[in-house]
């Protein structure tokens, strides 16, 4: 098409991990800050759940995570943590 200034090829599907799921509420906002920097890759779901709980009750020091964690219930936090762990980058 004339108007399309750049087209990007689609890629092969080799080696894609199965069992992917849609993100639970709130999960997609975490990647506004957590990406290649402030990476959450090293953490298991349990560690993320524990961190969120500690931020929520103020027992863990934070600049901003305390204010964010208090917007989520424990169940919401667990769903997010599991989704992040399940969808981690596997390269």
């Amino acid at each position, binding site marked *: 098409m004339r108007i399309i*200034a750049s087209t990007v090829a*689609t890629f092969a599907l080799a080696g894609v991990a199965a069992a992917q799921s*849609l993100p639970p509420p709130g999960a997609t906002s975490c990647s506004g800050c957590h990406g290649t920097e*402030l990476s959450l890759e090293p953490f298991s779901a349990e560690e993320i759940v524990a961190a969120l709980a500690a931020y929520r009750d103020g027992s863990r020091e934070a600049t901003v995570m305390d204010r*964010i964690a208090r*917007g*989520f219930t424990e169940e919401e936090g667990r769903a997010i943590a599991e989704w992040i762990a399940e969808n981690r980058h596997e390269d």
Partner: protein
Amino acid sequence: MKTDRRGFLAGSLALALAPGYLRAESTARIVVVGGGYGGATAARWLGALGHDVVLVEANRSYTSCPFSNTVLGGFGTMEELSFGYGDPGPVRVALNRAETVDTTGREVVLADGTALPYDRLVLAPGVDLLFDALEGYDEAAAGIMPHAWKAGPQTELLRRQLEAMEDGGVVAIVAPANPYRCPPGPYERACLIAHYLKEEKPRSKILILDAKDQFSKRPLFEEAWAELYPGMIEWVPMSAGGNVIRVEPEAMTIETDFERHEVDVANVIPPQSAGAIARAAGVADPTGWCPVDPGTFESTLVPSVHVLGDACFAGAMPKSAFSANAQAKVAALAIDAMLRDEAPPVPKLINTCYSLAAPDYGFTVAGVYAPQDGLIAEVEGSGGISPVGAPREVRQLEAEYARNWFNTITGEAFG
């Protein structure tokens, strides 16, 4: 269109948090107008979800408003703010202006006459600056009294004016009434201009003439002004005569309800509305902004058109790049569900606005949001501003996190 999760997600965990599941080929056509923080993010996510997406963007490259105040402060560069559309993931990019939308025939018409049919349309055109809303402030006036509220040549012009100003000069910042793009922006700007003047022209002053009596993160800004720039920044609220009624660019004067100020540099931030294409599509209401469903960002005025970012009325969420990016992901997932005839998920969103008061001095306002009674409301008990009176180490840490945020979010939106 099929998508390789690895291909799309390569190199960034930000993108690894994109839904990695894959489905059969989607036949729905999606057009996204506006390749800013909102539109570029939405296009990528919809592409990753397997949809046929065309992103329409008027400019060859994008200049970020976030961090543009660092250029005025003399410690950031325009290059750091510039992003291209060369690697848009599984999305086609049309570098053209969308002129009109036929919401009955479901077509977007571009400036060159090309018609792009859509099943779902996403409008993320950002804001238009309302010239002539303030007497004397038209497009020509912006060449003398820059707004610098769209980053690019305007940012460079304001920077040059600051560089040319004599020591002892007065810089005025005219701040608009709510709502407008980036509520803490004018006050961050005052800080970073003061940072430059303090080093180079220490007898100079900054006068903020405000159409409001309150502003975002005020206690933190006032603390920083007193600590870092004592005596340099004067904030004149509306009730003390801050409301500007007229400007005269040739004379470099600014007239408020009470007074006429003659200044050396004038940064006039005018009132704003949703971008013209949103108004052309009929999705803006008389306020100039676009009411949307809080779960899907679908227009409440026109079906199958979603509006996100600065252009929409997002309830309690401020008009920020963070909000636009968060809303884009929510809208993409909602559109994906709707195209599968499934109920869209009930979302939760986060916003965080970082502000710099100096290169190593940062703070935030944060919030968590959810739909409530048809609007987006702040989740009770969440959010708030950084603590007042925090030690400098904390301010330093938040300045570092501000840069992390900028790198992460621009990576997610622009690749």
